[in-house]
């Protein structure tokens, strides 16, 4: 059966990057033909299939505005953009990662900074998650947002520790960093636009039940 979101009247936002392969595998399993997406690395809009592809962090933006009815993205993205008015419908289970605080091995420079300076400097791509985590645990933190490899920041003295997502911990280890705290477990999530969720309830429920089966 070559069922697609399009002929169910839906448009689905699919994340490129680390979650792409498992997302397409999931769609294949529930009978949605993803061959065109797999074959076209550069195309973004697959109107025939009702699939659009984008960076994971853009998925909530499209879904909130209703430019996509449904989307798949990581819980890390949803935590960082927690103000988005979207529905989180299902935990898809794959893409499991942990949001952690990490610093250089040995005596924890973060703890030392907190004790002696009263404030810890943190580099991260997730400034809001980092800010919230330190605030909720009663510690003052100065959060530095970086766009590229976060691991570099503590090695060069820019910061005392980092907040980042890790799957296996390999990259951290290779850069001499150790996990100090776990903030949250993150997996891929299915999200929906709240208006589409009401007006296209039957199609969305059908898709969700197939995904959850």
């Amino acid at each position, binding site marked *: 059966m070559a069922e697609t979101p399009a002929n169910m009247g839906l448009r689905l936002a699919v994340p490129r990057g680390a979650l792409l392969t498992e997302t397409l595998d999931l769609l294949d399993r529930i009978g949605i033909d993803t061959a065109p997406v797999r074959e076209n690395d550069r195309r973004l809009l697959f109107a025939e299939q009702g699939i659009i592809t984008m960076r994971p962090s853009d998925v909530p933006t499209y879904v*909130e*505005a*209703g*430019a996509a009815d449904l989307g798949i993205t990581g819980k890390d993205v949803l935590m960082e*953009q927690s*103000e988005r*008015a*979207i*529905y*989180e*419908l*299902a*935990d898809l289970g794959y893409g499991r990662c942990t949001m952690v605080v990490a610093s250089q091995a040995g005596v924890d420079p973060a703890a030392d900074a907190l004790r002696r300076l009263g404030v810890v400097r943190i580099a991260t791509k997730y400034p809001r998650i980092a800010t919230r985590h330190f605030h909720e645990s009663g510690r003052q933190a100065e959060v530095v947002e970086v766009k590229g490899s976060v691991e570099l920041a503590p090695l060069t003295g820019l910061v005392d520790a980092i907040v980042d997502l890790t799957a296996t911990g390999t990259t951290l280890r290779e850069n001499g960093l150790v996990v100090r705290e776990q903030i949250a477990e993150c997996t891929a*999530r299915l999200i929906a*636009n*709240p*208006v*589409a*969720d*009401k*007006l296209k*309830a*039957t199609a969305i*429920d059908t898709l969700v039940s197939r995904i959850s089966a």
Partner: protein
Amino acid sequence: MSDRTPNGTRDVLPDEMRELRALMTRMREVFERGGYGEVYTPALEYERAAARGEATRASSPYRLFDEHGNVLVLRSDMTVPIARMVASRFRAAPTPLRFCYFAHIFQGVRPRRGQSRELLQAGVELIGAPGPQGTVEALTLLCDALEAAGLERFKVGLGDVTLYPTLLRSLGVDARDSETILGELALGDFVGVERELARLRMPDADAELLLRVPRMRGGSELLEGLNGPLHDAGTGMRELLGMLEPRTASRVIFDFGLVHSLGYYTGAIFQVYDPAYGMPLGGGGRYDDLLAEFGRPLPAVGFGLDVERVHIALRAEERKRG
């Protein structure tokens, strides 16, 4: 910096203003025909008046002092000011009282959302008319106003704020856990609802029911065969549906997961959806306890529409029609 407007506010120029005016004129005709006279209340209220309705809702984010040191707030909705007005200016007037308004309200903005601080709301308050008759009148007026505005494809989601809390209580969930679960539901986080239910280690059938009910939304088929703790809610909604004219009934979808962030709602609540716009265009519901806070206990119902969103949806519908 002085040459631009504050974040979340904007200027409206003649072409847009003409369209907004025309839209509001068409809605106002519907309201006036229904006996809803237009009122305007001050943008500024004393904090202590505004606070009465705010026991459980987000308070106005803008406060200032007057020359005597009184704290004033910019109104964050029109329902509370109209409740104050009714209790003071219509102390002994016969009920029901019917008012409509077209006014700006002010709200806090969440970062990165491009949200408005100042938004133009069109709405009505029907005071002294209990449910279900009052609710039917408000729903009918809501749909007629949206049709007069020119929208063709909108739907009104109808729910009841007491439905899910009642269900939680009847299944033995205590007040604190209920609040946590309702909080997840208000955020639209169904994964969070499932996680919290799993934490409570309740019988599978109960957890399954609590997970399924907020996902129940659709036509009147939803109201069939409701039993146990859902029996009363189903009966209430069926009665309401039976009292609606077909033109209004055809616009209604039932939504058992509808929750509202405004704390003063006490029963039926509604939310307006249009497939041409990704966010609700407005909403409303019954607030049978609010007037008592101002010393004139009366059942009441009302709704408010975001005029700019109605305008955006109208344009999108028109473009789709070509």
